[in-house]
């Protein structure tokens, strides 16, 4: 460590947070390999709970605001070191890590519990729980890692687990395909992460996050001006992969092929937010680069908009939630881009709760419907699944920003920051929020309202208590989590702000953009207007879709949005704006073509062709030579005489 005036506290607690789930994974995956899914689930849940307890201990020990500028390290072991590259496997506690720890282990544990019931009919479900535990290991490494490579280890680790879990039902090729798509898309992003690492290594000479924070903009301003932006853009590029932003978001909707608890844990609550988390960790660097933040900002807005548009017309309940996730992640990036890491992280937190809730709720529905995910075949489930229904209502309320639910606070914070960057972004973001209200109410209404539209819906059953308890807990979180960080005029908590600010190891982050002061009254007015708009849209959507009938609504979105002139647009939205097809056309096919072409042209025709050509020319020349060997002794003698004559002539030339 470079000598700073920062006090360093060492501990050995943090490693246990990782070791417990690792132990669980080893037990489940290698040693026990239980036949009973339930028992395996219990083992895994125990491991997860143990990690939660350890996390809790850590949080109680250091809290959400580190005094002054102290660092907490668990200096575990030296991973590898060579020359300039030094990668210690150290774990670090920062307040934001603390928050993430609680989210990951807490929500993780809930989802473990939920899964015990959800997966009980699986044969060999121990595999599932092994993967879940492994995911926790990786995610916690990501959260706790003290340097970029350790973070990267977790980063790729969660990618691997996501790959495994998406493709959990691997007998269907599409599932395996979706897993692969996720992994590869993430890898595209990871290249950015690596480039960023290499840039930091080459120019700053260190990969310890806090050291980078300490070096700060002053250090980097001495280097070529492109270095820091490039490195940060690399990180952001990686984040667009992991956190499903445009252009790399395409894997997330497909990732819904995995079991629903996985979607809840990985593809909603934890993994997909790691991009935001990592950016917040090196925020002092980002804060010094407004241009980079601008990119982040607009990508966030665009993604929020695009995903919301697509979500409007999806019929698969999990797809709606998936696009909603993409859209919400876009909100978070917008917050980052607007220079408000606390807002982004706050939304991460609240989103973790309500989105996990929504996913688990939809999981409960799907479970009740015997793995039917098409909303057009649902309807009227409110009667059959009362508890699930009410938790889903809470989740929906939270996500659309119903006043005083958690989503209300976080989303309004983001909107406020967006406003400070100008009216246009604000308007765009607001539209996205309105669309959120529309599609969420649409999903809610189609699922729970009206009459059952299929036998399965008619005979749907409420899920077991083991699945409902997590729903309950998450509902509570979704309702009240917002109060930890409230608008200034409400005077409530500002835990996020303090946590974020004390997470940089004492380094200061500058304000990237000028503060835009709005009067308290104006702010309240604005919030009220927003709430009114949102509720209006929500009510409209509710009204339209409450009586949704599958026969009548062959193209339900068409009816929803209005006249037929919009039909092409709806078609496009339903088909996700053909982004997948475009990627296929622009990247996948050319790559496949190139690979075949290169192999055939360079290897087979070129190099091997050259070799065969050489062999042929050898054959040919030996054929010619063979023709010269006539077998007639006089020919032989002729060569002798001619050879002698030629030699004599040459001698003559040389000599005379």
């Amino acid at each position, binding site marked *: 460590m470079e000598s700073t005036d920062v006090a360093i506290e060492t501990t050995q607690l943090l490693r246990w947070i990782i070791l417990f789930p690792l132990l669980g994974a080893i037990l489940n995956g290698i040693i026990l390999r239980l036949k009973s899914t339930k028992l395996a689930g219990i083992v895994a849940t125990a491991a997860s709970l143990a990690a939660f307890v350890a996390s809790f201990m850590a949080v109680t020990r250091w809290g959400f605001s580190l005094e002054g500028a102290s660092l907490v390290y668990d200096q575990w072991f030296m991973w590898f070191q060579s020359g300039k590259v030094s990668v210690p496997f150290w774990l670090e506690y920062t307040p934001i890590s603390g928050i993430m720890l609680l989210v990951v282990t807490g929500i993780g544990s809930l989802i473990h519990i939920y899964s015990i019931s959800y997966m009980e009919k699986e044969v060999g479900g121990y595999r599932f729980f092994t993967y879940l535990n492994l995911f926790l290991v990786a995610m916690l490494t990501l959260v706790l890692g003290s340097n970029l490579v350790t973070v990267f280890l977790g980063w790729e680790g969660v990618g691997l687990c996501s790959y495994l879990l998406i493709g959990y039902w691997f007998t269907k090729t599409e599932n395996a395909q979706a897993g692969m798509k996720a992994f590869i898309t993430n890898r595209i992003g990871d290249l950015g992460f690596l480039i960023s690492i290499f840039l930091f290594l080459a120019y700053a000479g260190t990969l310890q996050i806090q050291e980078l924070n300490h070096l700060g903009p002053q250090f980097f301003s001495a280097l070529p001006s492109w270095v820091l932006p490039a490195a940060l853009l690399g990180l952001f590029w990686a984040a667009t992969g992991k956190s499903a932003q445009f252009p790399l978001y395409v894997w997330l909707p497909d990732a819904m092929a995995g079991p629903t608890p996985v979607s809840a844990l990985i593809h909603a609550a934890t993994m997909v937010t790691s991009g935001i988390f990592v950016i917040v960790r090196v925020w002092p660097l980002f804060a010094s680069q407004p241009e980079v933040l601008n990119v982040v900002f607009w990508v966030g807005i665009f993604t929020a908009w695009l995903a919301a548009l697509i979500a409007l017309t999806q019929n698969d309940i999990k797809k709606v939630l998936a696009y909603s996730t993409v859209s919400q992640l876009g909100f978070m990036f917008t917050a980052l881009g607007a220079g408000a890491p606390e807002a982004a992280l706050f939304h991460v937190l609240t989103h973790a709760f309500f989105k996990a809730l929504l996913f688990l709720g939809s999981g409960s529905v799907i479970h009740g419907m015997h793995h039917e995910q098409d909303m057009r075949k649902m309807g009227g489930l409110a009667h059959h699944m009362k508890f699930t229904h009410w938790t889903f209502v809470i989740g929906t309320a939270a996500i659309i920003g119903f006043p005083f639910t958690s989503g209300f606070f976080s989303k309004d914070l983001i909107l406020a920051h967006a406003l400070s960057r100008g009216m246009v972004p604000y308007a765009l973001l607001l539209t996205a929020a309105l669309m959120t209200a529309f599609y969420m109410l649409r999903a809610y209404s189609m699922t729970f309202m009206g009459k059952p539209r299929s036998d399965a819906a008619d005979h749907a059953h409420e899920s077991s208590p083991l699945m409902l308890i997590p729903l309950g807990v998450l509902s509570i979180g979704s309702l009240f989590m917002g109060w930890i960080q409230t608008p200034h005029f409400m005077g409530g908590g500002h835990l996020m702000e303090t946590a974020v600010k004390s997470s940089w190891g004492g380094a200061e982050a500058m304000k990237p953009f000028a503060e835009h002061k709005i009067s308290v009254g104006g702010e309240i007015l604005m919030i009220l207007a927003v709430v009114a708009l949102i509720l209006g849209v929500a009510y409209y959507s509710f009204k339209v879709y409450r009586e949704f009938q599958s026969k009548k609504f062959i193209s339900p979105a068409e009816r929803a949005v209005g006249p037929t002139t919009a039909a092409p647009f709806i078609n496009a939205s339903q088909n996700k704006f053909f982004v997948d097809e475009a990627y296929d056309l622009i990247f996948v096919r050319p790559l496949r073509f190139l690979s075949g072409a290169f192999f055939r042209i360079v290897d087979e025709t070129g190099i091997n062709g050259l070799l065969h050509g050489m062999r042929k020319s050898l054959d040919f020349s030996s054929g010619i030579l063979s023709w010269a060997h006539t077998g007639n002794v*006089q020919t032989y003698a*002729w060569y002798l*005489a*001619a050879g*002698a*004559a030629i030699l*004599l*002539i040459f001698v*003559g030339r040389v000599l*005379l």
Partner: protein
Amino acid sequence: MQILTYVLVALSIMSGLGVILSRSAVVSAMSLMVTMFLTGLLYFSQGSYFPAVVQILIYAGAISVLFIFIVMLLDLKPSRVLIPSRKIVVFFAVLAGLFFAFSLMFLILPGVSRSSLVGELMSSEGDVGLFNAKSISLNLLTKYMLPFQATTLLLLAAMMGAILIGRAGRKKED
């Protein structure tokens, strides 16, 4: 004397041509004998009497006769020098020969005419003692004793070969 030498040279070359141009093997063999004889005379003309005698006795007398015997023995039909398929062979052979001759002359003549080689051969009378049977035999019996002895092995081998092969050829007829 000089004219005589030129005549001998011309004659020997002509008979040499006869060897390679004649259609009949008998004519060739006779021409060979004549060439040998003329060469012997050329030795005489430069005063190398002993080699001349040897040449005429052994070469012209024995080896050529051996050829003639064989020609008679085999009773060969006259063969044409130029049959269609051989034209190209002949062409190339002559080409190679001319090149050979040309390059040899090219190399030898300037050297010979430029150097101390130009000039009269030593007179045939003055140094008979130096270049006669005795001096040659002395060489063979002292300096070249070992090669000379080795020729016995050589002849033995040739003899054995001739016997072996001749016997084998005869066996066929049996």
